[in-house]
């Protein structure tokens, strides 16, 4: 084999450690949990302090996380009540320090709301609307929280795990009810749920 050897991922710095250290230093006691995996650090923060944390990351001279990368949520319907159902994931990028960080805010099924960040990052407007549309997370204070990808009159939030959009399973002897025409099927057979 010719050519230089590719650098291994282990030599690269951990993404997001700069942000985690900054939050820990400037707002002590705020971080709920930190975890490093695959060379990426994830920080769990309480939702009441989300706006404050993002303003700090954006404005502090050691952070400068000025670019919103994306917002999304991950639905874990089976883990309540031990842990809240939704992980809302934020990723911000710092061009100055060539780093990105991941923040996670957890919210429950009964109150899936989180304060909006559209006054911190203009790009959050659409990103939050997308998350509301697909996962039903309410961003309180958002000026125009309505569907963006799905039609305006759509019901349900497709990326939730209990939203059925999948096709029918193949009928075998253990699930012969599936072989019946759709209208004659027992009502609980509406699709594969997850």
């Amino acid at each position: 084999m010719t050519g230089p050897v590719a650098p291994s991922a282990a030599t690269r710095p951990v993404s997001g450690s700069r942000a985690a250290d900054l939050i820990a230093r400037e707002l002590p006691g705020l971080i709920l949990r930190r975890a490093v995996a695959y060379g990426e650090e994830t920080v769990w923060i309480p939702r009441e302090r989300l706006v404050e944390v993002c303003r700090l990351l954006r404005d502090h001279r050691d952070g400068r996380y000025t670019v919103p990368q994306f917002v999304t949520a991950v639905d874990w319907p089976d883990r309540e009540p031990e842990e809240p159902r939704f992980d809302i994931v934020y990723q911000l990028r710092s061009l100055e320090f060539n780093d990105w960080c991941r923040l996670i805010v957890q919210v429950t099924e009964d109150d899936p709301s989180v304060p909006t960040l559209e006054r911190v990052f203009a790009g959050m407007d659409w990103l939050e609307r997308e998350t509301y549309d697909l996962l039903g997370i309410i961003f309180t204070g958002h000026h125009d929280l309505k569907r963006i990808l799905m039609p305006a009159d759509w019901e349900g939030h497709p990326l939730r795990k209990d939203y059925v959009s999948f096709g029918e399973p193949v009928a075998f002897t253990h699930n012969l009810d599936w072989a019946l025409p759709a209208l004659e099927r027992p009502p609980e057979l509406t699709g594969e749920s997850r």
Partner: protein
Amino acid sequence: MTVLPPLEPPPQKDLASEQYERGREMLGVESGLDSVDLVQLDDSTMELNMGPQHPSTHGVLRLVLELDGEVVKKCKPDVGFLHTGFEKDFERHNYQQCIPYTDRMDYLSPLFNNLGFSLAVEKLLGIEVPLRAQYIRVLMCELTRIASHLLWYGTSALDLGATSPFIYAWRDREKLLDINELVSGVRMHTSFIRVGGLLADVPDEFYNMVNEFVLTFPRLIDQHEMLITKNPIWRERTVGLGPITVDDAMNYGATGPILRACGIPYDLRKAHPYSSYDHFDFDIPIARNGDVYDRYLVRMQEMRESVKIVKQALDNMPDGPVNTTDRRVALPPRNEINTSMESLIHHFKLVTEGMRPPIGQVYQAVESPRGELGFYIVSDGSNRPYRCKVRAPSFSNLSSLPHMVKGELIADVVAVIGSIDIILGDVDR
């Protein structure tokens, strides 16, 4: 003698009011039209619907424009017409089955989507593919970047009325699609980059075809530039149009040529090198003003840089396999299956169930022709992604459109949309 009364002049026929009366009779309208003021000179604005079938929207983008005369006061993009739920589809397919879905998101640069997804899954698995596969990935991606920029250049010039660049761009892009066809059998949705390597090694004709392209294309870019770079009509339409400042571009999350046209030399190929991009010598073109013309200049120069990378990849192409030998991903070789029962079982399990990356969450971004294309994958240890979020560059870039077109003329909205280089399949996913 009788005195006749003085003659009255015949009643003047008011043609307009007569027509008006006749019209009312025909329509059967009793009253009501009288209450409408036909002429109103005030500061009210007009709402104009543009798209989703407008040819200059590059797909199905709908804009609701609030106009004061010809000036755009407000612009509200309406997206989602191409939403196909790919992220939901990922959750029910195993990892290898997801690859064809990624092709269809950003359908003009499918290889970048393949690459981003494959790199993310490889990060979960802790696999590094052989160097030859990395070089071929880089080579094919840069060819795709050229193809994508050529298409952008042709269509956005066509939007402004220049037909010739479109024809020439198509002529050159055709050669790149031929290369795609040679290596994968398909011209656009190649699915050429797979988790763990490539679909297959490249055939022998590949080197000649790429070499010929590399030798001829720099001269062809000069031809393209000769057509419009200094063209007074093109400059009149694009210089100073739709500008965005560095701070606003960052605030909206805009990346790629839009950010680089503002003067920030940020390119993930340099900033976070993946797939051995750090072995290649190339520059990041930037411009200063962040307007439509500068985005054009940046993209044209990027094509030249891509040719440089392709040339280096071709010259230094290492030998060796193009797929990993890690058995969590790779199928056992044929001769082993003939003699070993375990290998046969493993082959069967891998084909029917697919690979099972460990539990965790990863994010992997690549520099697509439109900017930062990222894949955020959450794995629960099963053979299907638990959640796969695609950070689509066109989505964030398009969200800055209302900011760019505010105060511009309606005819220039077309030019600004073109300069963002949106792919609606990427916006809506």
